[in-house]
């Protein structure tokens, strides 16, 4: 007895929704098994990791704070992945945006302030991320270099650049030699939404971006050209869509959104520039985009789910002394589970009684 995959004629709508749910449940099961292997009480660990953060108002806010960068970056990646362009360097674009946006904050530090400072920072952040994202796009269009590898290499370059700045020219003179920039002025800080907690206005920006992205992708010719360029490049070429423009466009958008996430993070929850400003948001957002079915509203849900792995990981670090890597294991497992569950969407799994080759002759189809 063997199994074979049979391509579905149409992708089932139920399957599209069921696959991520199955994937999350499978991840929870595998996670519980992992707690057992680590010698922990699986139920207690499970509660600390996944339930407790959802029952406390403070951690619920934190959940949204952590989901914000994932959502912004993930939305940008949806543009890339729909167009079948593999930008995996969003982490670098995030850093580039944070750095360029911080120029404004650092230049105006200790000054008069002004309403224009924060908008200027956000704009510069988006530009910084877009420019960093356009490098792999240019190298692909002009030279045919794989955007996968160049975008990833640029992550290391951006991180080293940030490291240089906060240890060198941008180090806070009054910072006791710690590698960090000056703390941003109130005028250069993303305002909080509530008195207590860390929910900030960046979340509102993310919500606006969700709606705009859903509109552009679903209702406009631009969205259609992105989709078509990804799924049927030849048809897109015949239809007169310029493949190069799509490449530049999706990299600029995803870079800009990653850069925006970066500057919001340093001007919000972090409050200054440091050598490390991200626990891997740029990479986790890749999972958010895939788990969210490359759909802007789906990415909202998946960002919240993935934010939970961060919050749970922090809680488990404190109360269970578990290394933070557990979070990475969960995130990796989740991506594996969703990729596996996708098979159910795209294929029918058939049981084959005879050896595959003979059975195939009988059921041969056009």
């Amino acid at each position, binding site marked *: 007895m063997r199994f*074979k*995959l*049979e*391509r579905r004629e149409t992708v089932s709508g139920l399957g599209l929704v069921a696959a991520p749910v199955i994937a999350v449940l499978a991840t929870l099961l595998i996670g519980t098994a992992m707690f057992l292997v*680590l010698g922990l009480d699986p139920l207690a660990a499970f509660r600390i990791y996944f339930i407790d953060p959802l029952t406390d108002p403070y951690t619920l806010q934190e959940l949204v704070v952590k989901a914000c960068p994932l959502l912004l970056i993930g939305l940008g990646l949806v543009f890339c992945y729909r167009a079948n362009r*593999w930008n*995996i360097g969003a982490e670098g674009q995030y850093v580039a945006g944070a750095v360029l946006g911080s120029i404004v904050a650092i230049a105006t530090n200790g000054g008069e302030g002004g309403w224009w400072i924060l908008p200027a920072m956000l704009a510069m952040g988006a530009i910084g991320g877009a420019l960093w994202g356009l490098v792999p796009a240019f*190298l692909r269009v002009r*030279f*045919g*270099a*794989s955007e*996968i*590898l*160049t975008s*990833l*290499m*640029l992550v*290391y*370059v951006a991180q*080293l*650049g940030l*490291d*240089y700045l906060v*240890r*060198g020219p941008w180090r806070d003179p009054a910072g006791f030699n710690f590698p960090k920039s000056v703390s941003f002025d109130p005028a250069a800080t993303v305002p909080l939404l509530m008195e207590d907690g860390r929910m900030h206005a960046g979340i509102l920006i993310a919500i606006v971006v969700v709606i705009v992205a859903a509109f552009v992708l679903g209702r406009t010719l631009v969205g259609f050209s992105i989709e078509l360029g990804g799924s049927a490049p030849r048809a897109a070429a015949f239809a007169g869509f310029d493949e190069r423009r799509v490449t530049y466009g999706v990299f600029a958008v995803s870079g800009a959104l990653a850069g925006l996430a970066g500057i919001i993070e340093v001007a919000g929850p972090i409050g200054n520039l440091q050598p490390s400003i991200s626990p891997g948001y740029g*990479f986790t957002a*890749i*999972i958010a985009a*895939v788990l969210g079915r490359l759909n802007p509203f789906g990415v909202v849900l998946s960002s919240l789910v993935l934010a939970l792995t961060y919050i749970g990981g922090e809680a488990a670090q404190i109360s269970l002394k578990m*290394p*933070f*890597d*557990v*979070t*990475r*294991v*969960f*995130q*990796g*497992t989740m*991506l*594996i589970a969703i*990729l*596996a569950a*996708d*098979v159910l969407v*795209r*294929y029918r799994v058939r049981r084959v009684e005879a050896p*595959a080759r003979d059975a*195939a*002759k009988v059921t*041969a189809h056009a």
Partner: protein
Amino acid sequence: MHDLTILSAVLASVVAAATPLLIAALGELVAERAGTLNLGVEGMMIIGAAVGYATAYGSGSLVLGALAGILAGTALSLVFAGLAVWLAANQVASGLATTILGLGLAGLIGAPFVGTKLTAVPQLNIPGLTDLPVIGEVLFGQDAFAYLSILLLILVWIGLGRTRLGLVVRAVGESHSAAHALGHPVRRIRTLAVMFGGACAGLAGAQLSLAYTPFWASDMTAGRGWIALALVVFSAWRPLWLLAGAYLFGAVSILQLHVQGFGLGIPSQLLSALPYLATISALVVISALKKGHGAPASLGVPFVPDR
């Protein structure tokens, strides 16, 4: 005479820096020639480093450590093979998942060993030969990993280019439908090629934690798995060119260390970025020259037998 000693030491360290790149890239080259693009190299490498180190530390045997590293890399490669080969999932996403999982698992496995040290894998010394000026240490004073990497290179070069098995592997990578029609088990061959890649990546990781820097640090692979992937493109999928590529990158990474040592006022971060910038430049140059030629035709395309 003193200068010659320094030169000899520098050349020897270039070999040590190039060895993990060469080993991991050779494995990935075989996987790609069979048509599978496995972006999980970084993850398979780091799990090899972690498991290799933990085993060597626990057992006191470096050989066992290296073997455990190979096994760990192979085991993780099965995750990729299961997704990308058997479930026909997107190869880029499958490889990324493999890398993320590998980094996480390696962090978990390595956590108890942070701050510990091992005695590094000994260098081979042949009295007389190793003492030769300049080339002595380079050729006859390396550790077992360096010799193993050259052995692997010859094995892959002859195996892919001159044997029937190699022909089948390449056929599967060029046109999986044609290979399938000829009766070759496409998915089984791809799985074996991916496993070979995993074994090599695991061995390369073990070289890092057992010989190159004999301690455990999370993220100690520092993107070497990605550089190995780039080297395969750079080599245009030809094993002998990997040797040149790996040694070039070994030289760049050693050079930047020495320049940092001189303290010329160049920011150390810029020098640390050199290997990554060099990788991008190499990719650009080779892509501009080859315009996509040399890549296996079925690379990255999932295979689902439908007849």
